[in-house]
């Protein structure tokens, strides 16, 4: 006969674990972050390295998905050109809620060294970003760290996505422009 020992000092004296819905849902969300297989430039090479055997994203429950409908995280890895910006936004719109965005590398953060007419000066002009990842290119360890930070962020959030503050695309410069 199986012996079940009940520890009367904890768990209210019962063989159960108590938690909240938020915690349970976020446990699920944060431990199976599926990014979109989507690379833009040289940073994407580092993203691929993070996914491959040496750095091995799979052990964190992070598996790249080839369809935006199955993905939770969009890693914007690389230079976003103005010509491509429309498609990047469309992919973001196709992802189902809840969704998060990591902006990887200087190019995605601010336009980086491509201070020219053809590059979007920071992807947060068109897509709300959760984690900014500095570097040119960030090493795979950095991307892993960003994933872990994102997991941490998700665990603090509410299960109801409407209650979470998302970055809106309004910048202070935009706010000031509207006031004038």
């Amino acid at each position, binding site marked *: 006969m199986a012996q079940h020992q009940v520890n009367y000092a904890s768990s209210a004296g019962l063989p159960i674990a108590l938690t909240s819905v938020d915690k349970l849902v976020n446990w699920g969300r944060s431990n199976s972050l599926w990014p979109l297989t989507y690379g833009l430039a040289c940073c994407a090479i580092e993203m691929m390295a993070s996914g491959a055997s040496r750095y091995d994203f799979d052990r964190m429950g992070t598996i790249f998905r080839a369809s935006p409908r199955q993905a939770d995280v969009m890693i914007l890895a690389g230079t976003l050109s*103005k*010509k491509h*910006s*429309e498609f990047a*936004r469309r992919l973001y719109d196709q992802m189902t809620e809840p969704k998060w965005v990591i902006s990887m590398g*200087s190019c995605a*953060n*601010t*336009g*980086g060294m491509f*201070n*020219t*007419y*053809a590059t*979007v*000066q*920071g992807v*947060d*002009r*068109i897509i709300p970003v959760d984690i*900014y990842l500095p570097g040119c290119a960030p090493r795979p360890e950095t991307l892993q760290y960003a994933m872990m930070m994102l997991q941490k962020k998700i665990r603090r959030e509410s299960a109801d996505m409407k209650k979470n*503050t998302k*970055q*809106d*695309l*309004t*910048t*202070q*410069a*935009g*706010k*000031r*422009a*509207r006031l004038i």
Partner: protein
Amino acid sequence: MRKYVPKDNVQKKAYYTDRFHVVPRVPREKVIDTHFEATVFNLGEYVKDSYVEIGQLVVHIDANDNFAVLKILKEQCGYTQCSEQSAVDYLAKDGEFELFWQMLNVNEAKRVRVVCRLKEGLAIESVEPLFKSANFAEREMFDMFGIKVNNHPFLKRILMPDDWEGHPLLKTYPLFGDEFASWYEVDKIFGKEYRDIIGPENRDPGKIDIEDTKRFSRVGYEVPFGTEYNADEEVEVAYSETALVNYNKKTSKQLDERR
């Protein structure tokens, strides 16, 4: 939208102000007694000027003759590859473009550059029937300079989006783009009315906006994500002045002055 009017002409600015400065030139050698003699002879009347530069023949021709010249070079002289073709903008100086075709003879390892001048607004004949590589090269030339190509099978922009305004490799085109370029993604995705909300492009990657608590964390005095900025809550940072430089106090960085 207002049409972009170039305010300064880059080509009119002098690159060197030193009046004793002599612009270095590659020496030009005569074609006589080189292995290019036969090529120039074959081209005959078409040649306006010809010389050898760094072991490479340069042939100046009339803009109307480009197809005939390239045909002779391909069929009679063995220049079977057109490795590059494009243009240079000399509009401010001469009101013309310089067009060039870089030809390669693989068997004899010889190269010829065919050069011609084309007035602004005129079109050039396509060499696509001779060289398939000219298809993309001519489309790029059209995209970057706005030079039209006659009898091209599919003359359409190749690098920039189809609805782009302006031709970026013209010397009058600003590096940071004109008004159309700087709002392109906002106009396209959200519509023009979103310009006010998103705000102009930030061309200084080192800029920190202390009022923006969504994109920047406040060093020394941390507030939750998305809090409204309140100048009264500003606290004096006591421990490290050097690490906490307020970049916003200076209007612009050194880089801006050089620009």
